[in-house]
């Protein structure tokens, strides 16, 4: 019998070496199930119902329900995030609910790597390479958007006032991580 393959995350080696900096702590997020959902409006409702989180209709807002998250990325596009290992069940449930409705559900669990930065200088660190206004007024808790961080594309999501999640494509993860390390270095006195 063949042994089951084990997972190797893009940031496993880097995150093990990350120094503790309270003003901007950096960590990887555990593996997750992810989907890119797109479709026509008639599919939005059933999709949310089947996924367990009503898809937010407000631009650049995330909604969460029992550990599942739906992030608005475009008028017909959401990034769905759920616990690791739930992908097959979610796909089956959603596809059956969406039968005959115009939509596209594509699993991207491994495409993205997620990391979190938290602390009083978290926004400053992100602003080292992200041109967005990250004040609480312009980018409140619960806001998410596709944007850039230095030369990489990221999905940025403000989970709490001083806590952000970055979803980044796997091969860019090491670069994003290194840039975050570089930017938060000055808070590690």
């Amino acid at each position: 019998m063949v042994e089951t393959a084990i997972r190797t995350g893009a940031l496993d080696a880097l995150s093990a070496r990350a120094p503790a900096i309270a003003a901007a702590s950096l960590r990887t997020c555990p593996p997750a199930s992810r989907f890119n959902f797109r479709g026509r409006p008639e599919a939005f409702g059933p999709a949310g119902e089947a996924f367990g989180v009503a898809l937010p209709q407000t631009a650049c807002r995330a909604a969460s329900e029992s550990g599942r998250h739906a992030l608005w990325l475009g008028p017909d596009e959401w990034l769905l995030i759920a616990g690791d290992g739930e992908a097959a069940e979610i796909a089956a449930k959603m596809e059956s609910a969406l039968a005959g409705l115009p939509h596209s559900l594509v699993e991207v669990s491994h495409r993205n790597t997620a990391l979190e930065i938290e602390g009083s200088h978290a926004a400053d660190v992100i602003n080292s390479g992200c041109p967005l206004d990250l004040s609480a007024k312009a980018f409140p808790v619960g806001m998410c958007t596709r944007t850039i961080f230095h030369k990489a594309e990221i999905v940025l999501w403000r989970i709490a006032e001083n806590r952000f999640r970055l979803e980044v494509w796997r091969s860019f993860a090491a670069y994003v991580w290194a840039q975050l390390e570089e930017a938060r270095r000055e808070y590690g006195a």
Partner: protein
Amino acid sequence: MSGAYRLPSGGRINRQKPISFTFDGKKYQGFEGDTLASALIANGVLLAGRSFKYHRPRGILSAGADEPNALVGVGRDQAHYTPNVRMTMQELYDGLVAESQNRWPSLMFDVGAINDMLSPFFPAGFYYKTFMWPRKAWDAFYEPKIRSMAGLGKAPTEADADRYSQRYAHCDVLVIGGGPAGLAAALAAAESGARVMLADDQPEFGGSLLAETEATIDGKSAIDWVAEMVAALKARANVTLLSRTQAFGYYPHNSIGLSERLTDHLANPPAHLPRERFWTVHAGEVVIAAGSLERPMVFPENDRPGVMLADSARIYVNRYGVKPGKRAVVFTAHDGAYRAALDLKKAGIEIAAIADLRHHPEGPLVEAAKAAGIDVLPGTSVTGTAGRLRVKSATLARIGADGSAMDERQVECDLVLMSGGITPSVHLFSQSKGKLRFDEHLKAYVPGRPAERERSAGACRGLYALSAVIADGFAQGEGAAKSAGFGGVTARTFAVAGTLESDPGSFLGAAPHGRDASRVKAFVDFQNDVTAKDIRLATREGFRSIEHVKRYTTTGMATDQGKTSNMNALGIVSEALERDIPEIGLTTFRPPYTPVSFGAFAGASRGDLFDPVRTTPIHGWAAEQGAAFEDVGIWKRAHYFPKAGEDMHAAVERECKAVRDSVGIFDASTLGKIEVVGKDAATFMNRIYTNAWTKLEPGRLRYGVMLREDGFVMDDGVVGRMADDRFHVTTTTGGAPRVLAHMEDYLQTEWADLEVWLTSTTEEWAVIAVQGPNARKVIEPLVEGIDLSPEAMPHMSVAVGKICGVPTRLFRVSFTGELGFEINVPADYGRAVWEAVFAAGKAYDITPYGTETMHVLRAEKGYIIVGQETDGTAVPDDVGLGWAVGKAKKDFVGKRSIVRDEFQKPDRKQMVGLLTDVPAEVLEEGAQIVADPKQPAPMTVLGQVTSSYMSSVLGHSIALAMVKGGRARLGETLYVPMPGRAIPVKVVEPIFFDKEGVRLNG
């Protein structure tokens, strides 16, 4: 005690904190709070450098960012070395090491000073006149010589060891300049609730008030008022205060570049701090409160060390507690110098005389000077100075109505203070594309209509009285906040007392001196060594536009951007051409306002972080095996896997053989992947690709070709139909983003009605290609739920199942001509599955191979690589892909173009194979192909070699080429001309190995 010229009291220095530093190897003492300039002045040192062109000794001219002369190299070693540092901006720290520039062997004695004697041979435009002939001497002699002589500081020899950080920031109101206007503006805006940023280039806020000893504001001393304002701003959460921060560039849409110096003032910078921070601020509204610059007087020998701007001398006395000299002559056309004279006198500096170019100076400051017993000489000019490395005397002369000089007399002095008037600092306003307006009364350019959401406040818009400056600052700050949508600022007035009103009148141009104008040097631009004579010569030689005069004489083109020189140059041109200043115009102000470190612009984007380096999930394994990598876009791909002692050629030969004989394993993860999903997916694929897709059954693969609208091949790749409404599209590695954008473009702009969506899945899948006759045997034991038999899974099919217990989309596909599989697994499993396949392959001597071997194997089969065989001008038929064009299809992107007559012509470049006579001869890729090797150049070129390799399986080199009418030339001999010879090549079909495709279907 730090220096004989230190005043016993006063100044904003910390006398409890003495500091040691060296200048040109000599040790000196200063105090905390000193600049390098003020500390040297305290030690009686004014000689700071040698000038650019004539190597004349130069002293400290100013006390701020406008300093043209006192430039030094600073740094403890070459990895921390900065040339051309303005002494006036360099804060003193313990152990600071500075050295003067542009002199040899020493600052006191400089061989290059010979240039000064030779100056009659270096007139304006010298470079343009002298180095024209002979033409050949330019490359061999003139340019290298000029290069070695040019410039002031020396670039460091080691890479910069410091770190630089960058930050984007947003605010409602950005206030540039923390002087009286800026502080008031920031307070007003802050009180409105707006998010405010205040940037100032000095270590402490206050601007001109840091040198103010007389004035009171609201009954407090100026300095106490500043402290109170700063405290009030600091206490507010909506205010960001940035000191040591130069606003250097005003870019469109209120983007402002700031350069913050974080460690240049520290003796032992903590390792975690970056040296500088580069801010890109997006401001709702901008208040420019940049203050003003004092203008030098242009008179003969006005560049001798000891000649200084009057207000700068006042700053040295009041702010730094140092005496720039013992006995001063003041030369002015402006009341401000009287204030300086009074303050200097109070500090114990003897004022020998005030020579005022104006014939009837009057007003409270003039009266105060007279009352203090200072000798005021109206209608008097300084017509020269004497002294070698420092002023010893100045020559004064009365100026007649006709400009003649009378009653010359020498006055002993070690200091000449000058003030031609005030130039409002309109640089940033002008950078913002705001229109400047010439104010006849002020004789100055002031901001006119803004082009951005911006307003100027205080001295930078021509207001000089302190009361007016503060009131204006507050009003502009309030106005800015209001424009940004904030209001409710309580009206406020500031009671200013203790200042004497001054006349803003001023003088532009060169002062009259009555001496032989061809023999004197009256400097306009100190840093580029441009004299009044040079500018007049330019006008005599026919230059009329100030932009041309600037370039011809180089005035205003040094690193100080003409802060002290531009207006005087204008005045001289105006006089020479007898035209008003507004008619002559003004040169363009360009960012940066002051020099900015390259490091700050680069930020963290250097070395390993210059660009993202994309690696595959299998990269680590390849690195451990000693693979050589190549860059493909920003991906790193394994190029080949050398064993000990192997070069690339040997490794590739071995890898190729392994794939042909048994089995190889290849990381194809970088291939672009796009999931095309929706009811109309097949319709979409039909329109985007040349091929027909409707009849492709789920579970089958097809090679697809994509054209641009112009009919040229854009990309290719294998596509799997996973379900009726789902395609797994692959693209070239480099083409992935382009292809997705191309597809999205059509979908969104042309075919919005189609129910189909695209998702990039490039990074979802790791792709492991297993290729070779034993490929099936290797993977069979690892696969579950898929029948791998040729009947169940023929060439060009796809199945979903499991491998090593994880999900896979298994492709039976080949880019080598061998039996092959491409195993797609979720990326995080990529490495483990790869290792499992590798372990299973051991029995078959499985060999990892890189992109080079992949290229050879595919060339042996005549498979093209888009971007190698194609160059953006090839239609499918040119590269032998006519078969992939769906003839029956009504339309697809590019169809209309490829049916054009031009693309049917038989003499188009077509892909063929080439074989050399000598089997070991490998042609150079890119080499040209001709029919007649004896034709003299330029030869008639028929085409070029696009791919060329040594094929170990054939024992012969092979090449693919694009040749005019190539398919009709099969069997012909053509030539590849190389230096000294021409290589004969035989034109053959572009497929060299297993033409029948037997192995593929194994």
